[in-house]
């Protein structure tokens, strides 16, 4: 049967040529639309490496003078007294993972004399332990927030992420107790290594955390809060803004608003264009699937129309409706598969040529890294998964399009189909 279908396809190569070309182009663009969807969905399901549950950030505008720190301490203490609050701390503005602001510093060590750019988070020295607990960083040994030794001056220590440790200490030595230097001056002793965090949506990068006594040249800071497990977040936000915000605002610091870590993470996603990209890719996918459906349905309908007598003959010779449906299904499947294979060639060439997956207008690191622990970074798993999903969608669409059109013709009575002969 396969041989016969291939022969028929060859005889009708002119008509099949158009649909083949169309399916090849659709395959190319549909793959291109599916790729960012796969990447973004995969990134969305990353382990963020920090805990956003019940954590909130209060936006505080400050004036830059020495009395401000005292006023801020007062704010933090007052927030801690709220019965719904488990812990509170003052930190640099949006200086926690997943936020919309990201500072970068150059860091090096003795083993790594090259400067490495690292996402940097800054806590107030007075609140170092509270900061680690509220953000929920996880020590690689205990899986819990690192415990800062009370005897050490916190301004002299730093915490680095697993990825930062691998870059700064490539010999595999234990980073704890070793020194790292900061571009522009200053050095820190590594007090602990934390699990990797995603500073921005979907990106793992080396991270360093240090603490300073007072933040110079800033106009605002965050008071970050962890609520008790049984506390109602919505209720806290409402009552805080209605009752406490005005009371805690002074000449030195003014409370402007409150957001959950989760909301900030979502804002970050919107700001870098992830949500818009997802919508665009969904629309494009829908468009190409609709075009594939119309193309297949239209072509098969034309074929059925011109092969009425052939269908009649099959029916007269005892072919079942299922048999006729199967014949057309096979023809569609061969067409779609061949067109799809042709479309994969330029895709592979583009991806391997640039050594990165297809650019989706988001500042993700899309370079291929076949040693990465994340599947989406490796060429074969990434390419294979997206190709399978796209192929399955195309085949499904082709089968539906074929079924809808052939179904009518497979019901033809032989006498009706052969009447014109």
């Amino acid at each position: 049967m396969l041989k016969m279908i291939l022969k028929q396809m060859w005889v009708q190569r002119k008509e099949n040529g158009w649909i083949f070309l169309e399916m090849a182009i659709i395959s190319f663009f549909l793959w291109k639309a599916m790729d960012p969807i796969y990447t973004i969905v995969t990134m969305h399901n990353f382990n963020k490496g920090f805990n956003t549950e019940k954590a909130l950030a209060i936006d505080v505008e400050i004036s830059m003078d020495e009395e401000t720190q005292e006023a801020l301490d007062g704010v933090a203490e007052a927030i801690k007294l709220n019965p719904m609050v488990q812990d509170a701390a003052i930190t640099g503005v949006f200086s926690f993972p997943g936020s919309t602001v990201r500072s970068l510093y150059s860091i090096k060590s003795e083993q790594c004399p090259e400067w490495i750019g690292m996402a940097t988070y800054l806590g107030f020295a007075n609140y170092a332990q509270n900061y680690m607990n509220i953000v929920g960083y996880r020590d690689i040994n205990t899986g819990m927030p690192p415990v800062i030794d009370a005897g050490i001056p916190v301004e002299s220590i730093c915490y680095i992420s697993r990825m930062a440790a691998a870059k700064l200490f490539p010999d595999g030595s234990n980073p704890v107790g070793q020194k790292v230097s900061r571009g522009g001056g200053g050095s820190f002793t590594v007090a602990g290594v934390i699990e990797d965090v995603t500073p921005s949506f979907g990106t793992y990068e080396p991270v360093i955390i240090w603490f300073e006594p007072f933040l110079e040249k800033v106009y605002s800071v965050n008071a970050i809060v962890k609520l008790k497990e049984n506390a109602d977040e919505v209720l806290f936000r409402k009552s805080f803004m209605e009752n406490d915000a005005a009371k805690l605002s002074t000449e030195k610091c003014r409370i402007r608003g409150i957001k959950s870590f989760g909301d900030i993470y979502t804002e970050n996603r919107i700001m870098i264009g992830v949500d818009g990209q997802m919508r665009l890719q969904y629309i494009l996918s829908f468009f190409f699937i609709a075009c594939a459906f119309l193309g297949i349905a239209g072509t098969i309908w034309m074929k059925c129309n011109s092969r009425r007598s052939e269908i009649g003959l099959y029916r007269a010779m005892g072919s079942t409706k299922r048999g006729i449906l199967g014949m057309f299904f096979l023809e569609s499947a061969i067409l779609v598969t061949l067109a799809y294979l042709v479309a994969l060639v330029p895709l592979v060439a583009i991806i391997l040529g640039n050594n990165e997956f297809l650019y989706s207008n988001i500042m993700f690191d899309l370079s291929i890294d076949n040693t990465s622990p994340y599947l989406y970074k490796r060429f074969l798993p990434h390419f294979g998964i997206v190709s399978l999903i796209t192929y399955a969608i195309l085949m499904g669409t082709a089968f539906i399009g074929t079924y809808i059109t052939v179904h009518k013709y497979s019901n033809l009575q032989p006498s009706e189909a052969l009447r014109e002969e």
Partner: protein
Amino acid sequence: MIKTYFKQAWNIIGQNRLFSSIYIIGTALAIAITMTLFVIYYVKIGPVYPEYNRGRTSVIKELLIEVKGKNKDGETKIFASYNAGINRFFIPDILEKIENVDACTATRTFYADDIAADNGKSYQGKIMVRYADPAFWKVFTFDFLCGRPFMQEDMVEPPQSAIISSKLAEKLFASTKVAGREITIENSTYKIVGVVKSPSSFALDSYGEVFVPHKNNLNTDKPFATSTAHGMYGIYFTAKAGRYTEKISEDIDNVIKRMNVEAEDAFEKGLAGEQLSQIKEFDVKPFWKLQLDNDSAKGSMMETLQRLALLIFSLLIVPAINLSSMISSRMEERKAEIGVRLAFGATRGSVMKQVLWENMLLTGIGGVVGLLFTIVLVYTGAEWVLTIFDQGEIFEVAQRELNADMLMNPYIFITAFLFCMTINIASAWLPARWALKHSIADSLNSKK
């Protein structure tokens, strides 16, 4: 003759419903999505209320400052570099002294949580308040339904005047004639001096529900210098004769370069403290270019245009091939009919015309369906659709609305429609031409 072609085409549509439906749906889809793209970019860069001056408006939204200092060995090293908004004193200290600048304004926004009116009514929920000055109303051409724009006498500290949008006026006072009434925002009371026709929140550079005069921020509002260049404002200005942006940009650049040199001299002579701040990157961009730059993660207009071109190509080429495929099959089917027409003396040109007219009719119907679909899609899902390419902005007002003039623009529809019509006709012409190459005998033999 054309009437006959249309009659024939209409009959053929009726006889081949599936073919016609597929053709119309395919065309409608392509036209709808292409038209939606046109609407998105018209709203972003076209002259829409109240940003009718976009064509001659230039924008400076941020600048990069590099901070240097001397290390222990006395060498000058870069300590840090910051990118941020601009000190609003850039306008009196620099921009107003540049030739060919027509009107220039510094503006920024903040969100207020509730607004109370002097009649006891209040509006609960986030509302966008915009700082403005007298020049703001020259750069952005709002329609005043009552009252007047800000004048120099309104620019007092603390600000006491406000201009509100017609929608807010209706909500608070059930009227738009409310000049002279008072509103309270975050414990400050303002006297309303004007009411403007509500802008759309998709014209984000001028959007606000309330406009108040600038309020001094002690941290940032200082005379403009390289060390105080940062602030929280965006600067908008219109050029006098429309196309002087490049010259203006060059003049501003010269002033900034001079300031950098003076700052460095003072630093080297030990007259300017331990740090040297210099303005390193400073872009004056035409409004439309800034929007296109912003739509690219790489900040490049060319990248945005390339992406859009590829997008439009992919949206049009696929339906075009689909149509070519279907027309090719249809022409095969109609070989005998064409043979008869040719045998009775019809020219190949007249048969071609008939095919193209049929195609035009189907494209026309597809165009109308696509147009209706676009209107429904963009109007009902404005926020979902129009923000597809947006990056870097978080808009916190709950509901974003589109003004009618943004959507019902005949130029957008005509351009997108002609675009699709051309592609459709081209996709019919090629297979029709191939089919007409057969001899009359061949064509008549096909249905033996």
